[in-house]
């Protein structure tokens, strides 16, 4: 598989994104301002972080539906560790992130050790983790965090939101890992043909375990940022996140069957969706209309990509 072939969908998507940005900018003069764009970056950071890990998951041919529930569980644990157990906040954050990462590891363990298809395993943990969040919190919110904690979700470094830096660093790291390292090549190989990958000496199970653990870690990080941004903890946080994340990733050209996909594509997919949500709202389109447009764009973009593939004899 050559780089050109890999990038084909991404090229189409990039063109589409630029057209969308241009159209949206012409529809509202408030859209293409640094302030608005940075703010949108802030709003998409949580979905973005999870989407990066989800790209790896989907490239292996798997899926993780439990990310939203891990986010909710981590948020609740953060609050409970801090408020109910009286731990210092940094320790509570660290411990909650470890728990969230562990939740991801459990997904990977069930999938690799018991050979459960990822969709089923994470469908079960989707209910389980959300249920734990509800049970542990008894549906109570935790509030009253100290001011410094809000930096992660609301602060800025050099005029750019903190979480956008974090997302940027995560994009670079994940892009390098997926595109340039043996781990990335193993990820593609598993998605293309798991049996063949196993026979060619790739440690399929440990690779997958790492990837699902990373998905848990990213969801946990997103939870910390989310709690910091909205200054409170609730057990229903992140409900439905999985669909937003998966939409971004597949719009980015990652094949749901595995073996194909790039971080650049995912980033473009995320940017396109966020730009549509924001730009359409600014030009007076209501929320329900925006949902319809995003559905059409999703089908349309993949359709164009597929037709393009076929014309090239793919």
């Amino acid at each position, binding site marked *: 598989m050559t780089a050109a072939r890999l990038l084909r969908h991404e090229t189409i998507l990039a063109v589409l994104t630029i057209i969308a940005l241009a159209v949206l900018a012409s529809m509202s003069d*408030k859209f293409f301002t640094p302030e608005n764009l940075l703010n949108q970056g802030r709003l998409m950071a949580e979905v973005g972080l999870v989407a990066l890990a989800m790209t790896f998951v989907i490239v292996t041919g798997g899926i993780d539906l439990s990310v939203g529930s891990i986010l909710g569980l981590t948020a609740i644990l953060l609050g409970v560790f801090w408020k109910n157990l009286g731990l210092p906040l940094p320790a509570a954050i660290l411990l909650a992130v470890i728990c969230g990462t562990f939740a991801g590891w459990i997904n990977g363990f069930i999938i690799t050790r018991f050979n459960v298809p990822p969709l089923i395993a994470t469908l079960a943990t989707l209910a389980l983790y959300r249920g734990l969040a509800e049970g542990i919190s008894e*549906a109570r*919110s935790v509030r009253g965090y100290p001011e410094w904690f809000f930096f992660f979700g609301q602060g800025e470094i050099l005029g750019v939101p903190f979480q956008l830096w974090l997302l940027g660093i995560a994009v670079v790291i994940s892009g390098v890992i997926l595109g340039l390292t043996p781990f990335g090549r193993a990820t593609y190989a598993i998605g293309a043909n798991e049996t063949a990958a196993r026979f060619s000496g790739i440690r399929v199970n440990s690779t997958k375990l790492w990837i699902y653990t990373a998905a848990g870690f990213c969801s946990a990080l997103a939870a910390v940022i989310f709690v910091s941004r*909205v200054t409170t903890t609730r057990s229903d946080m992140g409900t439905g996140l999985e669909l937003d994340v998966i939409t971004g990733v597949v719009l980015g050209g990652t094949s749901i069957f595995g073996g194909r996909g790039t971080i650049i594509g995912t980033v473009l997919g995320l940017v396109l969706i966020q730009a549509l949500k924001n730009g359409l709202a600014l030009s007076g389109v209501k929320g329900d209309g925006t949902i319809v447009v995003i559905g059409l764009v999703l089908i349309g973009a993949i359709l164009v990509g597929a037709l393009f593939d076929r014309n090239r004899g793919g």
Partner: protein
Amino acid sequence: MKKLTLAAIVGFGLMSGSALAASAWTGGDDQPTNPLSCDATPAAAAAKPYDGGVPTNAPDRNGKKITVVDVPKLIGIGYFNATSKGIADAAAELGNVDAKTDGPTKANIDEQITFIDNYITSGVDGILFAANDPVAIAPVLKKALEKGINVVGYDANSTPDARQWFVNQAEFNGIAKSLVDSMAAEVGGEGGVAIVTSTFTTPNQARWIAEMAAYAEKCHPKLKWLETVEAQEDNNLSFNQATTLINKYGDDLKGIFGMTSVATPASAEAVTQANKCGSIAVVGLATPNAMKPYVEKGCVKSVVLWNPVDLGYAAMMVLRSVADGTLQPGATSVKAGKLGDLQVINGSEILLGAPYVFNKDNIGQFDF
């Protein structure tokens, strides 16, 4: 498999059975409660200084045309359609307001925040909101105030300093008193009652349940709370949950409280389909149109609600007064068009009135 399932069922059954025995009504929050007195004596209103926020460098909007966006908890349910209609009515009556309603399709804190954020960027003059979470929505509302936008809440409050005024449909303890008194009257003061609510994380419902528990303990100690079940804002789920309660408790169940405008008609339907009209009372918050069939058949005797159209109307009127500068911190009342003077309570809240109890005689007069 069987062993696992059995172990899980039995283990959790025992665990929760013991945990339940000691706890208060499930679904309430842990904020302090303030039950009203058992008779009709009104609570003494303690004067409180203005505790709302103030927009930074708001331009002079007195008498000028303003654009206003209304962001309810979610769109597409009867209740918020009604508030939205009230807002549109008030805007039409005022003539100098351009108002529209937009919001998430499910009650989701994150999406609601994003909607408000986008409207701040688009440069509206005023924001009306009904918060999905009082604290989570605060940062984005404060941002709106910083941009000089007038912010008024209705239905579900935020922390006070994140908005200027909040139009309160009825105080929590007032609703709780109406509901529990109605139920006590219907079941003869004693018997088992259960609750069907939306989710335990919905702040208004959690507050009402906590106040109901406190008021029932104080004034109707023989009402025995059995159980609270969650049913989202989903008709069929509410129906199934209410039916399960009826089947589970049999004759021990004397009444069901519906905590949302979805749960109440669905509970009434469950009672009707189980042929328990007359032996199980349904009391709850609901809109009159959805309840008419049950009230007219006599299956439901009383429905508690404020008029959501009036609530939206009042919120719009208050926002206009704030923009005009006629409603200032420290005021004790505000003129709200056809609703007349509304009273200021709790520092920065405007009270719509006492909750209204619909019954067979008057429900036909309402259409929302």
